[in-house]
C-alpha cells in the first residue's frame, strides 16, 4: 500500500463523480445514477481494502508515526506575513482506530443510500451532484488531521445538505433546511473561534528551522508545542481554555445532536427524502461525537476530566428525554428521529466515562447506530413510498400483508431495542460497563439504564401498532419488498447480526487506539 494515496482517492473520487454528473446531459438520467453507484462502490471497496491492510497494533491518536496511510503536503504557505511569521496550512490525512470504523461506516451508508436515491424524480442530476459533494465532505472530516482542513470539510458539508433538504424535501422543507443550516453554522462559528485561538497558541518547527503557528491537530495535542502566553495555552495562567472547550463542544453537540440543541433533527428528518435521512442519521450525526473524541478530548484533556460528569449527564438526558419524546410521537419518522437522539446519548455516556470500555462502546455504538438507524429510516421510507403516510395509528397488520418486510423490521427493531445477539446490544453493554465503573457517573448511569426499558417500550408499541393486528382494508394492496429494497436491507441485516455475535471484527480495529487515547487523557496535563 506504500505510496498509494488511498485516503485522497476516498475523499475526492466523489468530486470527480460530481463533475461527471454535472457534465452529463440532462436526458442521461440513468448514467447519472450509475456514476454515483460506481463512485460509492469504489469507495466501499477502497474502505474494505484499507481495513484489510490496517495495522491493528498501531495506535495513532496523538502520535503521528502510528497513524496509517498518512498523506501530508503543504497546502498553503506564505512566508513572513507581517507579525504572523510563516503562514501555513497542511493537507494532512490519516486514519487510526478512531476513524477507521467510521470511514467504513460512511462508505457502507453512502453505498446503500444510493439505491434508496434511485427513485428520486425531481432533477436527479442536481440531486446526485449534491449527494456526491456531501459524500466527499463527510469523508474529508473523518480523515483530516489538520484543523483548518477539518473545518473546511465541515463547512462544505452544509451546502449540499441544505439543498438536499431544501429542494428534495417534504412540505416544510424550507423551514427544516434553514433550521439545519443556521444551527450548524452557529456551531461552526464557535469552532472557528476556538480554532483560531488554538492557532495562535502553539507553534511547530518547520523544515527550514523556523517556527510557525500551526493547525496541525497532533501538534496541538502535544503540550510542549504551546507558547507560554498563548490564549489557549495551558502554560498561560490566564488562558481561555475553558470557554474555548465549551464553544467547541457546542459546535459538535449541535451535530450529535445533544439536548438542548437537538430540535433541528426531527424537523430535518421528517422533511428530508429517505436516502438523506439515512445519511443524516447513519453518518452525519457521528461527526459530532467523532469531533469530540478526535479534537476536544485530546487537545483539552484537563477540561475534559473536569467536565466528564456534565458530559455524562447530557448523555443520560439524551437517552431518557429522547426515548420519552419518541414514545409520544404519532409520526413514524419523527419517532425514529427521537429514538436516534436517545441512542446517541449512549455514545455521549460512553465517552464521558473516559475508560477504554466506555470509549470502545461509544465508537462501536456510533457504528451500530449508523447501520441500525439506517435500516429504520429505510423501513419508514418503504412504507411511506407505498402508503404516502407515516401516521402510526393508520396502519396495522402489515405482518400479514408484507411478511418479508416485517421480518426485516423485526430484526431492526430488536437491534434498536438492544437485544443480545444483535450489534446494538454489545455497544450499549460496553457503554454501561464503562460508565458504571466510574464512581462519579455511576448514579446517572443507572438512570440512563431506564433507556433500555423505555426503548423497548416505544419500539415494541410501534411494532404492535403498525405490524401486528389485522390489516385495514385500504392497505390490502400494499406489495412486499422488491429487489432494490432487499439489496439495501440484506447487507445491513447481515452486518447487524454478525457484529452482534462477533463484535471483535469491529472492536479489534479500535482497541489499540482507544487504550492509547484513554491513557493520554488520563495522564496529560495531570
Amino acid at each position, binding site marked *: 500500500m506504500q505510496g498509494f494515496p488511498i485516503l485522497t482517492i476516498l475523499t475526492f473520487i466523489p468530486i470527480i463523480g460530481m463533475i461527471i454528473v454535472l457534465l452529463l446531459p440532462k436526458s442521461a438520467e440513468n448514467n447519472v445514477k450509475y456514476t454515483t453507484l460506481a463512485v460509492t462502490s469504489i469507495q466501499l471497496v477502497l474502505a474494505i481494502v484499507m481495513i484489510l491492510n490496517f495495522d491493528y497494533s498501531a495506535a495513532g491518536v496523538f502520535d503521528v508515526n502510528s497513524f496509517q496511510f498518512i498523506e501530508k503536503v503543504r497546502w498553503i504557505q506564505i512566508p513572513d506575513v507581517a507579525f504572523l511569521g510563516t503562514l501555513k496550512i497542511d493537507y494532512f490525512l490519516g486514519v487510526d482506530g478512531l476513524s477507521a470504523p467510521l470511514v467504513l461506516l460512511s462508505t457502507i451508508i453512502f453505498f446503500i443510500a444510493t439505491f434508496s436515491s434511485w427513485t428520486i424524480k425531481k432533477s436527479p442530476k442536481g440531486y446526485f451532484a449534491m449527494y456526491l459533494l456531501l459524500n466527499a465532505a463527510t469523508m474529508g472530516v473523518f480523515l483530516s488531521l489538520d484543523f483548518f482542513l477539518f473545518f473546511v470539510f465541515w463547512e462544505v458539508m452544509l451546502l449540499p445538505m441544505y439543498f438536499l433538504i431544501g429542494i428534495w424535501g417534504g412540505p416544510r422543507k424550507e423551514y427544516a433546511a434553514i433550521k439545519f443550516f443556521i444551527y450548524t453554522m452557529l456551531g461552526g462559528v464557535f469552532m472557528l473561534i476556538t480554532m483560531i485561538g488554538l492557532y495562535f497558541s502553539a507553534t511547530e518547527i518547520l523544515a527550514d528551522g523556523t517556527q510557525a503557528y500551526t493547525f496541525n491537530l497532533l501538534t496541538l495535542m502535544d503540550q510542549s508545542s504551546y507558547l507560554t502566553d498563548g490564549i489557549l495555552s495551558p502554560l498561560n495562567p490566564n488562558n481561555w481554555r475553558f470557554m474555548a472547550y465549551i464553544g467547541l463542544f457546542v459546535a459538535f453537540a449541535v451535530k450529535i445532536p445533544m439536548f438542548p440543541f437537538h*430540535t433541528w433533527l426531527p424537523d430535518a428528518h421528517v422533511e428530508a427524502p429517505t436516502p438523506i435521512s439515512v445519511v443524516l442519521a447513519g453518518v452525519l450525526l457521528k461527526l459530532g461525537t467523532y469531533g469530540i473524541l478526535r479534537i476536544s478530548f485530546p487537545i483539552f484533556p484537563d477540561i475534559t476530566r473536569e467536565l466528564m460528569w456534565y458530559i455524562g449527564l447530557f448523555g443520560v438526558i439524551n437517552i431518557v*428525554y429522547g426515548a420519552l419524546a419518541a414514545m409520544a410521537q404519532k409520526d413514524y419518522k419523527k419517532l425514529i428521529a427521537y429514538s436516534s437522539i436517545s441512542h446517541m446519548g449512549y455514545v455521549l455516556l460512553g465517552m464521558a466515562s473516559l475508560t477504554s*470500555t466506555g470509549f470502545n462502546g461509544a465508537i462501536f455504538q456510533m457504528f451500530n447506530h449508523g447501520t441500525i438507524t439506517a435500516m429504520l429510516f429505510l423501513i419508514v421510507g418503504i412504507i411511506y413510498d407505498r402508503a404516502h403516510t407515516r401516521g402510526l395509528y393508520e396502519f396495522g397488520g402489515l405482518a400479514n400483508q408484507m411478511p418479508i418486510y416485517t421480518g426485516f423490521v423485526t430484526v431492526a427493531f430488536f437491534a434498536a431495542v438492544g437485544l443480545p*445477539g444483535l450489534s446494538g446490544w454489545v455497544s450499549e453493554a460496553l457503554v*454501561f460497563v464503562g460508565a458504571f465503573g466510574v464512581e462519579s457517573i455511576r448514579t446517572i448511569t443507572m438512570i440512563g*439504564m*431506564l433507556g*433500555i426499558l423505555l426503548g423497548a417500550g416505544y419500539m415494541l408499541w410501534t411494532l404492535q401498532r403498525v405490524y401486528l393486528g389485522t390489516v385495514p382494508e385500504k392497505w390490502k394492496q400494499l406489495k412486499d419488498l422488491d429487489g432494490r429494497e432487499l439489496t439495501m436491507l440484506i447487507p445491513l441485516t447481515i452486518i447487524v447480526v454478525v457484529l452482534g455475535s462477533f463484535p471483535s471484527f469491529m472492536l479489534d480495529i479500535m*482497541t489499540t487506539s482507544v487504550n492509547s487515547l484513554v491513557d493520554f487523557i488520563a495522564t496529560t496535563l495531570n
Partner: protein
Amino acid sequence: MSESNLISLAVTILFLPLIGFFIVLLFGKRFKQLYKFEVGIITVALLLSIFTGVVKLTNYFNNIIITQFTWIDLGNVPSIGHLSINLGIMIDNITVIMLFVVTLISTLVHYFSIAYMEGDARFSRYFAYLGIFTFSMLGIVIADNLLMIYIFWELVGLSSYLLIGFWYEKKSASDASMKAFLANRIGDIGMFIGILILFTNYHTFSFQDIFQNIANGVVPFGSNGWLTAAGILVFMGAVGKSAQVPLHIWLPDAMEGPTPVSALIHAATMVAAGVYLVARIFALLTADAMLVIAVVGTVTSIFAATIALTQNDIKKVLAYSTVSQLGYMIMALGVGAYKFAFFHLVTHAFFKGLMFLGSGSVIHSMHHEQDMRQMGGLKKKMPITYITFLIGTLAISGVPLTSGFLSKDGLLAGTWAFADLTGHYLIPIIGFTVALMTAFYMFRLVLMTFHGEPRNQHKFDNAHESPKLMTIPLIILAALSIFIFYTPNPVAPSEGWFFNWIKTPQSVVPEEARFDFMKSDAHKVEGSLNKDVHGSGSENAAITYSEMYEHAMHKVHYPAMIISVIFAVLGILLAFLMYEWKKIDPDKLAEKLKPLYNLSYHKWYIDEIYSFLFVERLLDLSRFISWFDATVVDGIVNYSATLTRGIANITGWFDTYIVDGLVNFTAFISGFVGLSLRKIQTGKVQTYIVYVVFSVIIILLILRPF
C-alpha cells in the same frame, strides 16, 4: 469421553435447535414438511443430552467442567491491565439435569404441537420459534458466566415474546407479549446493574472467578452491603423471569400463546430459569439477600394461590399455580433449602408441563374452549388425559408416592428448619397454608373439568380423546411424576440417587454476613472451590451448613411430612365437598365472602393499579416531554429566530432611514447648496474678477502678519 468431548457435546446440543430455527424460518414457507426437520433435530438433542448426562454422572461425578474463550479482547487497558470479556461453558451436575429436563420437555412439546397446531396458517414458523426458544434456554443452562446468562436470558425473552404473540392478529395476544417483554426488562435492568457491580470489582463475569474473589475476602467496593445489593439485584432478573411479585403480572397474560407453548415456556423451562439463576449465584448470597429472596418467594406463593382459588379459565388456574410454585422454589432457595428447591424445579417441570399439555388436550378437544364452566364430565370422553392429569394433580398437591410429595415436603421442612433457627415462623406457616390451597384449587380444576355432568352438552358431544401424538407425551410426563424415578424410598428423597446428584454450593460470603447456621464448623469444611489451571473445578461435597442446620432439618422432617399430607388431604376433601358431593355451595360461599372473593377474582386489581400508577403516568410524562420539546425547547429556537428577524428589521429600518437617510441627506444638502450657489455662476468675466479681488483681499486680511 474426555472432558473436552463433553463440552463439544454440550455445544452441539446448544446449536442444533438454532440450526433448526434458521432453516425452518427461511425455507419453511416453501417446504411444508420442513417442520419435521426441527422435530428431528430436537429429538437428536434430547438423545445427546441423555448421553451427556450419563457420561457426566458416571465418569465425572465430582468435576465441574469449564471451558472459556475470549469473546472481546479490549487489549491492555490503562489502570486495569489486560482486559478481555470471556464466554464459557460449564457442565456440572445440575447442568446435565437441566439439559435433560429442557430437551425432554421441548421434544415432547414438539410432538404434541404437531397435532395441536395442525392447520395453523403459520405452522412451520411455530416450530422455528420453538427452536430458537430451546436454543436460548439451553444457553442459560450451560453458561459459566453471568454475561452469557444475560445474553441468553434476553433471547429467551425474545422467543417468549414471539410465541406469546404468535396469534398476533388478536390484540390481547400482542398486548400480552409486549407486557411479558417489558415486565422482564424491568427485572433485567436490576440484574444488569447487579452484574455490573460484580464486573466493576472483579473484571470478570465468570461465576467461578467471582466466587474465588469473594472467598478470598474481596467484597464489592469493600463492603458486605454491596455484596448483598449485588445478590438482590441479580435476583431481580429472576423476579422478572420467574414471575415473582411484583413482576408476576405478565405470566397469566402469557396464556394467550398456544397451550403447548405455555407448557414449555411458561410452566416448565423459561420460568424456571429464574430459579436456576438464583441457584447459580447461591454461593454469593448474604444472609440479608437470602432473607429478601425468601420473603419475595413466600409472598408470591400465597399471593398467587389466593388468586388461583377463584379463576374459571383452566389455563389461568394453572398459570397462577405456576407462579405460586415458583414462589415456593424461590422461597426454598432463600431459606437455604437449595437441594429441595432444585428438586422441586425438576419435579414441577414435569408435572406442570404435564398438566399444561393435559389442558391443551382438553382445549383442543373442546374446540378452543378454556372456560371450566363450559366443561365437566370429560373423564369418560378423555380417559388418558384424565388419568395423566390426575397424576399431575396428585403430584402438585403433594400426595405420597408422587414426585411432588418428595420435593414439596422437603422444601416445607426446609422452611420449618429455617424458622427454628432464625425465628421467621411466618414463612413455614404460609408455606403450609399454600399447600392446602394448592390441593384445593387443583382438585377444583379437576372436578370441574373432568367430573360431574357436562355443562355444555353441545361441546361435550363433540369432545373426543386426543390423538396419540398428544397422549403419549402426557403418559411419559405422568410416569416421570412418580417417585420411583427419583428415589427407591417414597418417603425419603435423600436416600435417592437424584437427590445426591445435586450438590449445595459452598457459600463464599464472609462469615459475618452469613446466617448463623451457614457459618462453617471448622472441622466440617472439606471441599472447596479449588479451581485448577485447566479451568476445571470440583463440586466435591461442598459443606455449606453447620451441624446445627442438619440437626434442625432432621428434627422437622417427619412432622413436616405429616402436616403437609394432612393439609393436602384437607384441601382435596374441601374440593370434593364443594364440587363433587355438593355439600357446600361455592356460589353461596362466594356471596358470603364477597369482598374477598372479588379481590381474588380480580387478581387483587394489580393490573389496574399498575396501569394507573405506572403506564398511564409514563404516557403522561412522555406526552409532556413531547409538548415541552415542541413548545419550549423548539419555541426558544423559533423565538430566537423571530427575535433575530426583528432585530434585522430594526437594523434594516435603521439602515434605510438613518444610515441611508444620512447619505441621502448629504446628497440633498449638496444638491441644495449646489442649487443656491448656481446663482453666482453668472458666466460674466467682470463679476468673476470682482469675486477674485474681494477674495484676495479677505485672504490677505486673514493671513496678515501681526
